[in-house]
């Protein structure tokens, strides 16, 4: 058997090991296979992307890795300022708290950026949680349209504890991608397009997270152990089948 690609194996491990400690696992992987450092850091949608560039207003040119250059052009920088204002409104409307940051940079054929949203709920209380959204996008110039490639990751950690329950931790991350072409004739329209894409993606992902965290995970627990008696449930099903059968006759 040909051995698997180490990079694919590293990513596979990261989707299997406890998502609460992804940063620690990543450090372990890098120490185990230093050759993979750059590939892993550039492909992972972790809050690590914050390393791309120092926060807005810090002035100094940043040592970003790869991409089309670290310091955005004046035009892209102006859009970045406006996008920060727009996503600040978005944050207030949807998160009613938390923090948001937007970073843009130039590409040869357009621009790219990352939208970060972060909120913590009831830290220190019996039931707590944190939400991190990381939206990385490219906006590529086409003839009349702009093509947007958006990769979004949400890291959602929830935990609760009590005497009767003990410790319960429900944590993880999910990633989704979308590509779309939209007209963008002005900088304002660019920001509106990115805003809509992010807003739609977050709505979709919030629904998905709700389904997986509180639907799927709960169902699996019910599949492992049945609160009610299995033989009674079996007898009930049998009785129901007979009833339906007799009504059909």
């Amino acid at each position, binding site marked *: 058997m040909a051995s698997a690609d180490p990079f694919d194996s590293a990513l596979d491990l990261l989707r299997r090991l406890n998502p609460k400690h992804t940063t620690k696992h990543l450090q372990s992987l890098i120490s185990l296979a230093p050759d993979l450092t750059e590939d892993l850091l550039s492909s992972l949608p972790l809050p690590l992307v914050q390393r791309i560039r120092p926060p807005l207003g810090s002035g100094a040119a940043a040592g970003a890795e790869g991409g089309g250059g670290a310091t955005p052009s004046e035009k892209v920088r102006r859009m970045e300022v406006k996008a920060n204002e727009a996503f600040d409104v978005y944050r207030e409307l949807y998160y009613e708290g938390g923090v948001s940051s937007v970073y843009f940079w130039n590409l040869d054929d357009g621009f790219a950026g990352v939208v970060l949203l972060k909120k913590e709920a*009831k830290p220190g209380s019996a039931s707590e949680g944190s939400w991190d959204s990381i939206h990385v996008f490219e906006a590529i110039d086409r003839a009349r349209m702009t093509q947007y490639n958006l990769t979004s990751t949400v890291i959602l950690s929830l935990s609760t504890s009590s005497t009767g329950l*003990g410790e319960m931790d429900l944590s993880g991350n999910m990633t989704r991608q979308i590509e779309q072409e939209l007209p963008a004739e002005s900088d304002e329209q660019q920001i509106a397009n990115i*805003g809509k894409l992010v807003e739609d993606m977050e709505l979709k992902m919030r629904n998905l997270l709700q389904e997986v965290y509180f639907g799927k995970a709960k169902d699996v627990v019910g599949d492992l*152990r049945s609160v009610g008696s299995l033989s009674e449930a079996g007898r009930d099903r049998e009785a129901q089948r007979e009833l339906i059968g007799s009504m059909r006759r």
Partner: protein
Amino acid sequence: MSALETIESFVEGAPPGELADVIADIKALTVADPGLVSKLGPAFEKYNEEQFATVRLPGSSQPIIVSSHSSLGNGRYYDVESSSSFEYDHATQKASGAQSYVLEGAQAELTKSTLKTLSPYVKEHFPNAAYGVYPTENDSKVAIIIVANKYSPNNFWNGRWRSLYIFDPSSGALEGSLKVDVHYYEDGNVRLLTSKPVSTSISSGTGAGIVKEIGNAEKKYQDELNKGFTSLSEGAFKALRRQLPVTRQKIEWDKVASYRVGQDIGGGSSRR
């Protein structure tokens, strides 16, 4: 952390039913040092004993548990219900060399009577589980183990329920822990990890009394766990991000700049 400690921690963190996948990943990451994987024996042993790995003996349909409480040393384990012992390969998770094993000692009777009532209880509440009862701590106490697994790798999820109880006949104390581990990994990585200590006492000291108390504790726990899902969903999750703004409408992005200058963007929290 040394390279060996690193890959040992990966083994320890393998989700239910995914040890073989984790080992394959480790092998691909350590091709430069193939000797490293061969040093994982102790990590595999620890993983299998802690996770209550199950194995089927040749010619038997009943899964049997591997745990420190059923260990005879030198890689051999025993099972009371089938009166057999076997050699277990921790790396491949396969059993061989089955022999007859007769349980003797001070706790043999209690072990067997507990097993007798445990069997119908497990069948009533676990669609797919292995269970075992073993004298432990130099034949002074009795260990009771239930492990239920459900693997669905084609649908990207796997789950495990573990119950471990230690009954002390001299005091009547029943101490234990309940643990649930669920992994979902379709375009993501989501993990449910729970742990609940159990501490109660059995006045009758009989096998039936022990199993009855286990049933009570597990029912109570599962009800609490279901309430936990609801409280996280209605509490922390809702508090993190709204599904829609208070206005119940998506944002009008072309007007977002005007939101800023004091138009009603819905909800008191935005007014300062």
